[in-house]
């Protein structure tokens, strides 16, 4: 099996207008900057972006927001130092925002990848973020029912990959990348190093079954 794609342009070619798109990363770590830049060139718009943050400065998701490609952001923490493009689009009413507690975001994504119909979490019970959601009391404790969150595409970043799409990660660049790889119909991986040899099966964090294509993009950050 060979899931390698020659370049970033070809890797992001399948992304269509109006797609839901998971983007890995937390802060500046583990973001697929190469794929995001290629997507900007590719031109897909009306995107729903699912990510922990909403970009900072003039890089990554901030570039997509600046270019007006994003219709909706689903994230836990849109407001970070330098998140000017998100704030600009949000204040102008040009982008919708769904704020999801970070653990609920990760678990909704995992549920989608694992074929589950949702889960009950104590997170947000009794707060504004649980309004309108089903709740249930189990052994005296309140829980909120949360639904799975799938996506059409995921853009993820890993440290090493092989022909089979197996991935391993570096430090805190792992974050949302493995769980997003599971949940999208079409997961596109950017790796710092594409290995000619198969990765050691013991070191594989994301098995290739979750990955549609893998492309090398060396630059860290």
């Amino acid at each position: 099996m060979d899931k390698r794609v020659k370049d970033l342009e070809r890797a992001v070619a399948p992304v269509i207008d109006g797609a839901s798109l998971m983007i890995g990363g937390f802060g500046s770590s583990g973001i697929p900057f190469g794929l995001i830049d290629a997507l900007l060139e590719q031109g897909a718009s009306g995107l729903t972006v699912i990510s922990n943050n909403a970009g900072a400065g003039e890089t990554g998701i901030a570039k997509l927001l600046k270019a007006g490609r994003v219709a909706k952001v689903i994230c836990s923490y849109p407001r970070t130092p330098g998140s000017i493009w998100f704030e600009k689009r949000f204040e102008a009413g040009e982008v919708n925002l769904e704020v999801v507690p970070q653990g609920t975001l990760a678990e909704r994504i995992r549920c989608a990848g694992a074929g589950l119909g949702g889960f009950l979490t104590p997170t947000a019970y009794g707060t504004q973020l649980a309004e309108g959601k089903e709740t249930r009391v189990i052994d005296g404790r309140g829980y909120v029912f949360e639904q799975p969150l799938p996506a059409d595409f995921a853009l993820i970043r890993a440290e090493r990959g092989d022909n089979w799409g197996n991935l391993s990660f570096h430090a805190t660049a792992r974050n949302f990348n493995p769980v997003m790889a599971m949940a999208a119909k079409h997961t596109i991986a950017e790796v710092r190093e594409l290995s000619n040899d198969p990765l050691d099966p013991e070191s594989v964090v994301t098995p290739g079954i979750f990955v549609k294509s893998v492309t090398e993009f060396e630059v860290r950050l």
Partner: protein
Amino acid sequence: MSVMTMNALDDAQLAARVAQDIPDGSYVNLGIGKPTYVSAHVPKGREVIFHSENGMLGVGPTPEPGTEDLELIDASKRYVTAAPGAAFFEHSDSFAMMRGGHIDIAVLGAYQVAENGDLANWATLDETYPPAVGGAMDLVVGVPTIFVMMRHVNRDGSPKLLKSCSFPLTGLGVVSRVYTDLAVLDVTPEGFRLVELTDGCSLEEVQAMTEACILT
């Protein structure tokens, strides 16, 4: 009366005070902002393992300039190092640790704390300002001991320790203890109970800056 007239603790002193109450062998999550200062003040001889929500146990000190690993950051997005015994993991495992009761103590900042332990630290009433919850709601439901570390009052002098919160809640009845520049207070079924006053502060002065009643 302003806080400046009293012997308020500065941020480092407050962090050191919180660190005194973290036992040897604890797994601890530090919220973004001022709580991150706590790790620098762990008393000698104690090993405390710091968890960072973005997928790390064993957060170590800030790296020497020039040795930063751009993909080794904490929840505040600061460059960090890995302490001996550290581990990396993905997000759903990280939040399983938080919600699943595996972390012993979390230290968080707050906009408001109510006398019943309600915490408000993720959104204000200003709707033009995008809210940002991050991992706070997951931490407060899963971590058995929640320490809040904050200024006793807002910049304009208005109280942050209230009878009930006016801002949207992060969690209901979740705060265990509050450390401010003026006092340490436990949240009890009866309300805030004084643990200690900062040297040079009187109960009368501190009560005047607190909306809720302080029990002694």
